Each structure stands twice: as C-alpha cells, then as structure tokens.
C-alpha cells in the first residue's frame, strides 16, 4: 500500500539496490522494489542507482518517466485503476469512470484531498469477459457499476 514515507535511509536504499545487481538487466526490478518499499521512487535513490549501474541520471530519468507505473511522488494510500479499454467501453465503462471522477472532483491520476485514493486509468486488466473492470491495489473487480465503485471507494476511505 503506497504511503507517504519517512525520509529514506541511504544504507537501506543501497542494500535494496545491491540485492538486485546479480540480475541481468536489473534496472526495472530495482525500480519495482523501491516503489514496493516506498510507494514511489525516492529522489535519494537516483544517484545511488545511477552509480551502481554506471548510467547517467538522464538515462535513469528517461527510464522512470517512460513507464506509466513508476512514480516520483507518493500516490494516495490506495490506488484505484479503472479500465478504459475497448471491451470495458462496450459495457459502459466510460460513463461510469466519468461519473466517479466527477463525484470525487478529480481528473485521471488525481488523489482525493484526504490522501486516501488515487484514481488512474488502465488499459486492460484481462477481465474483458466480465467488463467493466477495475482494480483496487491488487484486488480485481469485475462487472463494475456505480454502486460497486462506491463500495470500493468507501472501503478505501475516499
């Protein structure tokens, strides 16, 4: 669950990075591990990664900014992903997503003012035969309607 972290400990960050250096192509596993531990990629980790992998800060920035998953700032305590792809659209996902965002007063990628939930678009969760689909953190939900989304948001404290 992503949360606002305390100032990360440099030794701890280094240890996390070093734990992946035996892998071939370790950068994505490192970034995933950092984000799993801290909810985002901490600024303090960047020079450590660049140095450990012998790449420039610019290259590292290029990778982090390329992928939709990686964050450089904390998200809400929960992340709600609503599928926007075609199969979900065929079952009315667009209207459901718009209504939810409007109710929360958010745009895509926005976080509720109490910091509980970030709402993000996702393009397919592989739940296309029980569309529309959504995912709260790692929990998948099918045949989503306004009522189901309300329940999920209430659970998440939005």
């Amino acid at each position, binding site marked *: 669950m992503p949360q606002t972290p305390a100032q990360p400990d440099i030794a701890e960050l280094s240890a996390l990075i070093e734990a992946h250096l035996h892998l071939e192509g370790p950068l994505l596993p490192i970034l995933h591990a950092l984000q799993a531990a801290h909810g985002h990629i901490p600024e303090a980790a960047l020079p450590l990664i660049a140095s450990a992998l012998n790449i420039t800060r610019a290259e590292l920035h290029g990778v982090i900014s390329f992928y939709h998953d990686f964050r450089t700032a904390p998200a809400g305590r929960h992340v709600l992903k609503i599928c926007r792809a075609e199969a979900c659209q065929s*079952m009315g996902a667009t209207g459901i997503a718009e209504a939810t965002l409007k109710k929360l007063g958010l745009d895509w990628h926005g976080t509720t003012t109490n910091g509980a939930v970030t709402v993000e678009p996702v393009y397919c969760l592989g739940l296309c035969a029980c569309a529309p689909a959504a995912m709260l953190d790692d929990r998948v939900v099918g045949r989503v309607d306004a009522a189901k989304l309300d329940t999920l948001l209430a659970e998440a404290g939005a």
Partner: protein
Amino acid sequence: MKIRVPMDSAAKALGADAVADALRTASEAAGIDVEIIRTGSRGMIWLEPLVEVEIDGIRHGYGPATPADAAAILAGDSNTALGPVEELDWMKRQTRLTFARVGVIDPLNLDEYAAHGGLSGLRRALGMSAEAIVDEVKTSGLRGRGGAGFPTGIKWDTVRLAEAPQKYIVCNADEGDSGTFADRMIMEGDPFTLIEGMVIAGLGTGATKGYVYIRSEYPDAIAVMGRAVETARAAGLLGDVLGSGRIFDLEIRVGAGAYVCGEETSLLNSLEGKRGVVRAKPPLPALEGLFGRPTVVNNVLSLATVPVIFEKGAAHYAGFGLGRSKGTMPIQIAGNVARGGLFETAFGMPLGELVNEIAGGTATGRPVKAVQVGGPLGAYFAPARFDTPFGYEEFDGQGGLIGHAGIVVFDDRADMLGMARFAMEFCAVESCGKCTPCRIGAVRGVETLDRIRHGDASAIPLLTDLCATMKDGSLCALGGFTPYPVLSALEQFPDEFAVPRVAAE
C-alpha cells in the same frame, strides 16, 4: 467430498474467494468433510464463480454461485446446478489442446499436471536432437499466437543455427490487447505448461536461460507463475532438466505499464533495463536479441502449445485448422456478450457463429453493431462481414487481423467515430516516441477526428492520408496498425463520420 473453485482472476473479480470461504464455513457447520481445491477457470466467465462438486469422478457445476448458495450446493439442491461440466454445450463444442488442463487441475500441483499428460512432451523432446525438435514444431504448423503469425519453427531454427556463447528464450506475457486474456488464464490456470514449453524451446535452440515478461496489470498471474517456477526448480524441471544433464532455467520479470512493450524489440529493451522503445529490424531478435544474443521471443500461447505438440505429435496438431492456419486457437470472447469467455477451437469457424451462437449475441440484448477482432490495433467488423472464417489469411483478406484472437462485441449504441478517436488517443498515450508517424500521427489523428466530429467533411481525405502514412512509415505495429480500427470504422460506418451533430452536441 472434493470441491473445486477457480482462483483465476476473472473468477476472483466476480467473487470466487468469498464463495470458497462460504463453502468452507458451510461444510464445517454441516459437519461435511470437504476438500476445497482452487483451479484455473474453465473459461465460461458468465458462469463464474463456477463451483464444481465431484461425485463419482464426475464434476457437477454450480454457477454463477454466490456465498448464499454454499449450503444448497453442499446439499446438492442448489438452483445454480448446471449438471456435469464436461457435458455443457460450451465445453463439448471446443477442441481443447492448449487449454486441456486449465480449470481441470490445481495449477500448482506438479503431480496432477503430470497425471494429465504434462511432462510427457518434454520427456519425448529430451530424446530428440535439437534439429528434430525444431522440425517437429515446423511440421505442426504452429504460428506465432501473439498476432504476427510467423511460423514458430522457423524462428526457432534461426536461433538454433546462430552461434553464440549465450542464447535466450523470452516469453512475451505482456498481453495488453483489450479483449484478450488467454495468456493470463494459462499463467493462472496451467503455469507448468508454459514452463515446459520454454524448456523444450531451450532444448531445440540451445538456449539455457529464459525470461517471462509479465505485465504488471496481472498481479495474480505474476504470483502464480512465481510459485510455479519455484516448484519447477525444486522438482528438477528447471535447472538440470529432469536429470538429463541439459540446463535450462528461467526468471519472471514484471513490466511497468507500457503497452508498447508487447512489441518484441521494445520488450527486449525493457528487459535490459532501458526505455521500452522499439528497435529497427533487422537485425532480427533471433540473431541479435536480448543483450545482443540470439533470442526466441514467443507469445505465451505459442510456448504453452508446444508441450501438447510433443505429447500428441506434430501431425495430430496439424490435423486441425484451415489452410495455413493449423491447429487450434484459444479465442477470447469479450465485451458486450451474453456468454463471454475462452473458447478454443480449430481455425476456420466463421466470426458470426462465434458472436451469435457461441457468445449468444449481446449482453444487453440489443443488436450487434460491430466486433473488434485482434485488440486495439484490430479492425472492426460489421455483421456484413460475419462470414469471415477465423484464420490468419482469411482476416487479412478482409482488411483485418486476428491478432491475439480476442473479439470484442459492441451493441448498436456504439459510437464508431468515438471508437476511431479512441484508437488514435490510445496510440498517442502508448507510443514509444521513436518514429514520427506514430508519435505525431496519433496526435494529429485525434485532432482530425475531432474536426470530422464537428462536421468538417474535408478532413476525411486527410485522415485516410494520415492513416496511409502511419501504416507505411511506422516502425512497429502500434503506429502501423492503429489505422486498422480507424479505417474499418470509417469504411463500414461512413454515416457516422462528418455529420454535423447539432442536436447531439
């Protein structure tokens, strides 16, 4: 009493975990001795959660089940009763080769896997030369199930003949196409078949290391595959392969939300820890792939089909299908359908039969307006083209593609100009940015469709011209195939383009 409840994420998304819990509680309350086994899904998603109760070796289905049905299911008098699962029309009409075990076995039980034919293909391959292994795949007629349809055996042969100190097998499990979920179902429902297929690919090509690149949107598949790899390693399926002295091991890697990483060269860059930008071809990944080494990049379904080809023989597999589309295809029926799910059948079934008979038309009961086949880069098919048989060449001949064999059904309320605009918008969001036709073209495409939306008919030739540029000038299928949904919508639904929408706005 043995009861099976799927742990497939579609079943979980519809409440399978709560049903399993309720069955456990109800059985304790009733004092019945029950073993609850979690399986993959049979693929009848409209019946999920589908509970199967085994009586005298026959599995009786109950679905869609809710926790409130638990007691009645245990008592055998639930009104969700469907009868023997294997006798259901959906099951009987299929030819399940790749998906033979999915929904049947406990996905993480290697003994049960072996008892249902697993590992016999690998044992046979271990007695064959690399050349004979590759020949077997060639003879089977297996073509890339990711969408491109390139003959798998020929790709393997290129890697086999390449000389290098290290070769790789990379499984593309970045299944990002809307309307597709077969890779996810295999990984969650029968992960060992994918592992076995990768080991055989290693034996055939001389590769000793494999990677499965799974999209991050599939947390359940990642978890199941991770546990399956650990089990396989502990059991000697990975490492020193079944004690043969031949080495093959693999690792699971997780994507990071980039659709374009489903393109093979972009995926390789991502595995290497780079931005997932597309590489120009040549060089082919088969010669210069991961870290510049000869690499087989195959889709999950291609690799997961290899074990059954070796178990039953290439000729058996090639005996199914139509023309150059040999074997079976796990077709994923999705979107606005009465009966959605996975339906594996020999190539050749007409699209209309899939939509109207197998899927039972729309979920909303309204007329079908269009079907998008092959994901967000696939063409829309209006009912006038429903006689197209499901095959690579047959769809190509109709200006479409089968892609990863997902079909998404829309009812008569679909806004086709809106869908065309979405295709361009999606391409703009997901473009890797390397080539101009895709990076800029997608943005211009959205703008041009907005002009058309506002009644500017002069923008239509501009759109077709832009699509021609994207088709011919893009480096990969993202920019190159985005015109398919756009142009197919324009061609088949011209009335929806460039009509001033005063009343509708």
